[in-house]
């Protein structure tokens, strides 16, 4: 190998290679034959790789803007995990203003990583820790090897990859990656990027990007809004509904508009009792009927017709009161009640009377009817609260299953249980 003015010749085919990284470049692959070799006197054998061009989505030399800094793609490697043998891609990027960074891609999911100073764990070897306000959890620990390389590198990517143990901690969409060898430690911070964002940053057609499969290990479940915002808004709408319910309940008229006690003698020779007329005021409101019958081991059944005196509109319904009691092995038991309630929805204002068709039984001869206008009800409130909770409930159930899927490829899954 020989070279000058940032040109080096390939030790295998002697082709001249001009270095993009100039003096920073430590290793590269020959543009003519693809052989991987080191610049300078490293006394290491050159390496050749089986061509894995189909893995590469962004060509060497492509420039793209990430976080408002222009990066150029210097090198590309395909790495393979040594235990489970899964492969992923890494791109070495360089910005004259920010130094080097990495783009990693696995199953169409992208992470942009940049080196950081210091130890985010404050030199305490823990699997879970807090860094910059996010809770990081160990996702994977592995050794890897390079199975394909292309372009230029500022370090011996083969040697570094094979001599380091990698640990990755995630707090989606962020991650922290630790590369540790006997004599070096490198921490990188990373963030998840959508394929579309990478395609736009490097002006690559989206169709050329590898398709996204499964759940990326740093892929956020939802990037449109935070969990905190959803919880806060859900509480807000619930309190609004509760306030509306309390306001409507307290302002309900709840007014007795008719009350009368009846005896079977009131029927005389007829089957029906027609009440006196009463007024329902205040526009459209509900009407509650409260029926009391002093039945004992018996039932009382009646049909009601609430009739508008002016229009002839009728609202017909039936109610039944039953009450049974007795002694069984020395204990008194009861079943049923002496009362029944019925509510009619949306009854317009007007003058009304009720036709009552009672069915008395042998030992029951009386009943009473109380009619109230505009009574407070709570059923709608409960249904509204359920309706409002459906969205956050569905969100968090879906998130739970998504998180389980995210951690299904990890040896450190918090969801893992021995079964």
């Amino acid at each position, binding site marked *: 190998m020989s070279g000058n003015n940032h040109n080096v010749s390939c030790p295998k085919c002697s082709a001249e290679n001009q270095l993009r990284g100039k003096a920073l470049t430590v290793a590269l692959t020959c543009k003519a034959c693809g052989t991987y070799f080191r610049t300078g006197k490293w006394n290491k054998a050159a390496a050749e790789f089986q061509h894995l061009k189909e893995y590469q989505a962004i060509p060497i030399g492509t420039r793209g803007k990430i976080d408002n800094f222009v990066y150029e793609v210097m090198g590309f490697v395909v790495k393979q995990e040594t235990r489970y043998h899964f492969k992923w891609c890494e791109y070495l990027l360089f910005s004259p203003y920010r130094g080097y960074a990495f783009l990693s891609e696995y199953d169409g999911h992208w992470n942009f990583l940049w080196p950081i100073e210091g130890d985010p764990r404050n030199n305490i070897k823990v699997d879970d820790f807090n860094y910059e306000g996010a809770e990081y959890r160990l996702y994977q620990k592995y050794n890897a090897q390079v199975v394909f390389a292309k372009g230029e590198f500022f370090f011996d990517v083969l040697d570094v990859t094979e001599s380091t143990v990698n640990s990755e901690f995630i707090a989606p969409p962020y991650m922290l990656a630790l590369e540790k060898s006997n004599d070096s430690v490198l921490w990188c911070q990373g963030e998840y990027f959508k394929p579309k964002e990478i395609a736009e940053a490097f002006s690559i057609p989206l169709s050329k990007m590898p398709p996204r499969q499964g759940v990326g290990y740093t892929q956020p479940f939802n990037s449109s809004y935070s969990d905190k915002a959803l919880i806060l808004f859900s509480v807000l*709408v619930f309190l609004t509904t509760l306030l509306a319910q309390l306001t409507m309940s307290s302002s309900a008229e709840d007014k007795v508009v008719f009350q009368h006690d009846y005896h079977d003698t009131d029927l005389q020779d007829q089957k029906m009792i027609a009440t006196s007329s009463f007024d329902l005021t205040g526009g459209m409101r509900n*009407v509650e009927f409260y029926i009391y019958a002093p039945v004992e081991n018996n039932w009382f059944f009646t049909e009601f017709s609430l009739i508008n005196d002016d229009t002839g509109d009728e609202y017909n319904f039936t109610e039944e009161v039953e009450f049974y009691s007795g002694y069984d092995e020395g204990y008194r038991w009861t079943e049923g009640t002496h009362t029944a309630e019925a509510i009619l929805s949306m009854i317009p204002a007007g003058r009304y009377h009720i036709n009552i068709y009672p069915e008395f039984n042998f030992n029951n001869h009386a009943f009473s009817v109380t009619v109230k206008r505009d009574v407070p009800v709570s059923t709608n409130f409960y249904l509204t609260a359920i309706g409002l909770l459906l969205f956050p409930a569905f969100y968090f159930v879906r998130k739970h299953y998504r998180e389980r899927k995210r951690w299904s490829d990890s040896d450190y899954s918090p969801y893992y249980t021995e079964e």
Partner: protein
Amino acid sequence: MNWDDIKGLRYFIIYSILLIGFFIYSGMVGWLWFNPTKAEPVRGTGRSGHVYRYHK
């Protein structure tokens, strides 16, 4: 909660406003969404006033 959160939650916000609005409207007109009393309305039969009717 910031502007991005509000944008992201827009469908939930619209749904909540509609649901709460419907809830308040129902409360104002005395509409019970679930009513165990099965009332059978009969429009203007012309039998207004006190009428005699045999029991069914």
